[in-house]
């Protein structure tokens, strides 16, 4: 048995995201934490996970840790490579993508994501990278997961700019819009797991080992709802940690 000190908050986030993936899922992966989560899932409970990258790579089997979304290790040994237009049209828009991973500078009460700008769009306080693939991933992947560290700045009640749709003002509004994906299924942070309720509003459903609800409340920018029964996530197993540290990120680029 390992003790509570032997894993980091970041590892808790990655391991818990990995556990949400199902065997056979086709996942639209980003670099960094989502890449680690997918590769971890593929080496544990989901050996038939297919990893797709927005650069147009399908069935990647990276031999080393990819350091960018277009890393050549994603290509060598992949099962297919197509153009960027095709990956977004034939795969994502067509409905062939099961899972999309999203992140962003701000996530709000209804899971809307801001990756564009803090402050006014035309006179930005902080200019962020922008949508990249996330506007369409959030809309068209069958289901989405959001991974992000938990702090008040990242969880305002309402995003400054809605780059990618969560549930907008509530589940009904998203449904009315007719987009094909079912939207965010869960937000996995380094403190907790939050799941949208029947109205699309986030509520805490699970806390990571050693985390108290108060800490989540203090790090969320609105009065966060809490599920009637709240569970505690299982500690990362030694095998999960071994894979992360020995196989996936041996030099600790994303884990440290």
């Amino acid at each position: 048995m390992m003790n509570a000190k032997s894993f980091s908050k970041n590892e808790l986030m990655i391991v818990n995201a990995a556990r949400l993936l199902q065997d056979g899922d086709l996942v639209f992966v980003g670099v960094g934490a989502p890449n680690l989560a997918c590769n971890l899932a593929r080496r544990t409970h989901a050996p038939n996970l297919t990893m797709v990258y927005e650069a147009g790579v399908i069935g990647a089997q990276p031999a080393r840790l990819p350091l960018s979304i277009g890393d050549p290790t994603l290509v060598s040994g992949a099962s297919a490579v197509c153009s960027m237009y095709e990956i977004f049209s034939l795969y994502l828009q067509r409905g062939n993508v099961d899972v999309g991973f999203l992140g962003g500078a701000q996530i709000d009460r209804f899971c809307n994501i801001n990756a564009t700008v803090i402050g006014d769009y035309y006179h930005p306080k902080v200019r962020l990278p922008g949508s990249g693939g996330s506007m369409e991933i959030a809309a068209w992947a069958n289901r989405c997961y959001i991974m992000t560290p938990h702090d008040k700045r990242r969880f305002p009640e309402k995003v400054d700019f809605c780059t990618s749709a969560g549930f907008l003002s509530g589940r009904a509004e998203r449904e009315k819009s007719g987009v094909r994906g079912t939207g965010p299924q869960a937000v996995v942070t380094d403190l907790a797991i939050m799941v949208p309720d029947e109205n699309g509003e986030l509520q805490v459903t699970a806390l990571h080992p050693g985390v108290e609800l108060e800490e989540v409340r203090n790090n969320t920018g609105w009065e966060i709802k809490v599920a009637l029964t709240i569970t505690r996530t299982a500690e990362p197993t030694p095998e999960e940690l071994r894979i992360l540290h020995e196989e996936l990120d041996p030099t600790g680029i994303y884990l440290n």
Partner: protein
Amino acid sequence: MNKLCSLKEAVAEFVKDDDLVYAAGFTHLIPFAAGHEIIRQKRRNLTLARATPDLIYDQMIAAGCAKKVIFSYLGNPGVGSLRIVRAAIESGELEWEEYSHYSMITRLTAGASGLPFMPMNLTAAPDLEKVNPNFKRVVDPFTGNEVMVVPPLNPDIAIVHVQRADAEGNAQIWGILGEQKEAAFAAKKVILTAEEIVDEAVIRSDPNRTLIPSLIVDAVCRVPYCAHPSYTQGYYDRDNDFYLQWDEISKSKEDVEKWLQEFVFDVQDHADYWQKLGDATHQRLKIKDKFSTPINYGEF
């Protein structure tokens, strides 16, 4: 027609002040050598379009080449922020026009296809559409539902780096394809840079691999290591160290100017730049061979 020339000649002839330039490549095959040559030739008031501006546009904007950027993701890939473009937008010095990846390449695809617009499904995300009038809606006459449409993007000049091309400009690319083909077909002029110029017979031995045909190409330049610090699949690795370094360099205007002086203005061309990087870098970026299983076209 043989279109071989130096990159210096190609930029002099085909890249003009005020042009809309699309230097293609999604992380892979980014034509840094062409960006540096444009800096050396002091082009001004360019509009720089790319899905991911990457360091190449950071450098060109730092050098004062551009008045506007068109993009869908503004970052130093795998590192973080693209400091120079970001600061120029925050300060109001640089115009910008913004898309998602899919709407950006949909514009290029419309441009490449000769279409006045291309549709895309609605995304339910409301805000980008409000700030960019190039997103419009039409009613699908078959279902009565609304669809998003974007207009074509037809750059004045596309610069596309490839693994191998013949002297006429028939070009073959493998690895990540990004929007190379679409940019080339959409543009009014195309400069091709290639790791290798090969005999026409090599190209013709595998016609399905040809992404860009000579008929749309205006200049063909042999530029080995053109993509550094980006990479060329099968030729050399990405210089991730430099991407990290740039994150430091670009924190200071002085350091940026010093870097530009040393690695752009004080070198003659890309061969000179590559030599300057030194043997340790060359060794670090070397890769081992891994060949495709050949296919049989048959003698017909």
